[in-house]
């Protein structure tokens, strides 16, 4: 056992990478749920984003175009959910599950010719001087741009929900859609926008896995991250910064436990393997001891009959 073999700088840097797909997907779903819609199709939208982004960046040679395609891909798939739940007024839980199943199968079909292909590398940002500061530089200023997009998105969602009129309307729709409707807000339209936003974020998260974290295309490669993101939104009490904290905790402990294993620390591996789940849930449950609760209209279908 030799803890000295763990490089704390590399550890923190790689935990941020491990957390980003989860964060992107969770932030998107958070907005969707704040608007009162429960979309269980995160996993499906992520994997479709992963292959859309991968395919486009391989074809064009540009990772940026890839990420844009991933966001579009995720949003297009979520359109299907829109059609089912907002237009046809189908059950949201069933539609979301269907979306996941469809996304997994469809992405496997799309990805057939991309197995074993190497995507173009996005490269890391390198700002002169700042990126070279010892310790802080490698941790904070030497990542790929999408990682910063994730953090910026968290801040933007938080500020929008808390301080802007749009955020207020979105929350009103999620808390009581009848009241919002009576006030003249277009409930369905607002929800559609939120769902599309959630789809785009999930797509970005998926592409982050296939283009940066792994980087390759393999069928089913999101391997359940979408479900963890869904759980994370609940445990984070629908608060953006807590979602970020949860994602970093989860990503961090996942990477840390692998590091501890490799360094030969004498903690039984089973405990290490379950630690990310337990610690993340524990911390977020303790944090959510205050009176934060789910949006009141979460999962309820809105039909403007009166």
């Amino acid at each position, binding site marked *: 056992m030799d803890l000295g073999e763990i490089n704390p700088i*590399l550890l923190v840097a*790689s935990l941020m990478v491990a957390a980003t797909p989860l964060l992107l997907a969770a932030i998107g779903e958070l907005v969707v749920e704040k608007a009162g819609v429960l979309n269980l199709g995160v996993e499906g939208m992520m994997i479709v984003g992963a292959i859309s982004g991968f395919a486009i960046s391989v074809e064009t040679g540009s990772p940026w175009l890839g990420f844009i395609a991933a966001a579009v891909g995720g949003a297009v798939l979520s359109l299907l959910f829109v059609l089912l739940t907002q237009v046809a007024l189908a059950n949201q839980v069933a539609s979301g599950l269907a979306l996941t199943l469809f996304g997994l199968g469809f992405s496997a079909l799309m990805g057939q010719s991309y197995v074993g*292909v190497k995507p173009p590398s996005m490269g890391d940002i390198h700002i002169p001087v700042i990126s070279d500061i010892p310790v802080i530089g490698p941790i904070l200023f030497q990542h790929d741009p999408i990682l910063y997009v994730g953090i910026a998105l968290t801040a933007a969602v938080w500020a929008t929900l808390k301080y802007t009129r749009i955020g207020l309307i979105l929350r009103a729709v999620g808390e009581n859609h009848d009241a919002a409707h009576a006030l003249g807000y277009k409930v369905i339209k607002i929800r559609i926008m939120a769902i599309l936003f959630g789809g785009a974020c999930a797509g970005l998260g998926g592409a982050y896995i296939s283009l940066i974290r792994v980087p390759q295309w*393999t069928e*089913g490669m999101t391997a359940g991250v979408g479900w963890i993101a869904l759980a994370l939104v609940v445990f984070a009490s629908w608060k953006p910064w807590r979602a970020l904290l949860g994602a970093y905790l989860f990503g961090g402990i996942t990477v840390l436990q692998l590091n501890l294993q490799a360094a*030969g620390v004498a903690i039984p591996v089973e405990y290490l393997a379950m630690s990310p789940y337990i610690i993340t849930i524990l911390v977020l449950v303790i944090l959510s001891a205050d009176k934060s609760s789910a949006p009141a209209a979460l999962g309820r279908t809105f039909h403007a009959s009166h």
Partner: protein
Amino acid sequence: MKFTSLLASAAMALGLATGALAQDKTKVGFVYVGPVGDGGWTYEHNKGRLAVEEQFGDKVETVFVESVPEGPDAERVMTQMALEGADLIFTTSFGYMDPTINVAKKFPNVKFEHATGYKTADNVSVYSARFYEGRAVQGHIAGKMTESNIIGYIGSYPIPEVIRGINSAYIHAKKVNPDVEFKIVWAYTWFDPAKEADAATVLIEQGADVILQHTDSTAPQAAAQEAGNVVTFGQASDMSEYAPFPRVSSIIDNWAPYYIARTQAVMDGSWETVSTWDGIREGMVEIGEISDAVPADVKEEALAMKAAMAAGDYHPFTGPLKKQDGSDWLAEGETADDGTLAGMNFYVEGLEGEIPQ
């Protein structure tokens, strides 16, 4: 469950409806732990399935369900296959062992074949390959090629099959490089590309310049390629898309001959319970092409070792060998018996860390 498994269920429903028409066809089912596109373990099993189709043409019908979790859900999938008229079902992961036995009890007329397990019944056979023979070759190349003398090993679950591989690789790396050290990380998954990539990255960050994997996806290969100067080996499948570097060689599981033989046995009515454990000699384990990134003399030695194992002249577990705790295991010249190997739950001397129990 995935879209393809939905398709499979739909096909099954259709199969029930048209069952009378399809009486003369032998129906063979496959249960996979990962997606057929994983590029590794499941990919090779699916190649075996396609070989069965090609061999028997119209006389056979195959169905498969992919990404079936190890546990109760597997029982449901197998039951569904059996109900729908499968004559022979291959369950292709260690964790399907008890579900296979349970379902087999309910369908005495259906033949089951479980990969890598050890529980048999009147209608359950087991089959596996001596992957550890391939690991010996990998260990030799790894020991010769490492410069940091740290070899990273991504384990899936601490089961005998995986532990055998670690021991075999270590023994042969140590033999050519006494300073070599193994860092072992348990991923607790067969297939999770992101996690496998993380594990590989962690090992590389801690100084490993050779990565051996016992998980199913090609993600560790991609991580090694990204890192640059790190050697890897294809696992379960050739993974030649990462050749000639980082992937310098591979273990290929060739299931096709076995699947064809067993399907034939069901057709002839000659099927019996067997425990098959074949290696390089029988062709169930193949060594993928050793690339030019490996020095010529090392390549030659590796091929000589492979030839010796194929001829039956060399056993990877040949004494003198001690267990991790220092107690004697094999005396000079003694080779390990299959019983000990099948249930192997200890490290050999020199490996650090404990096996999770």
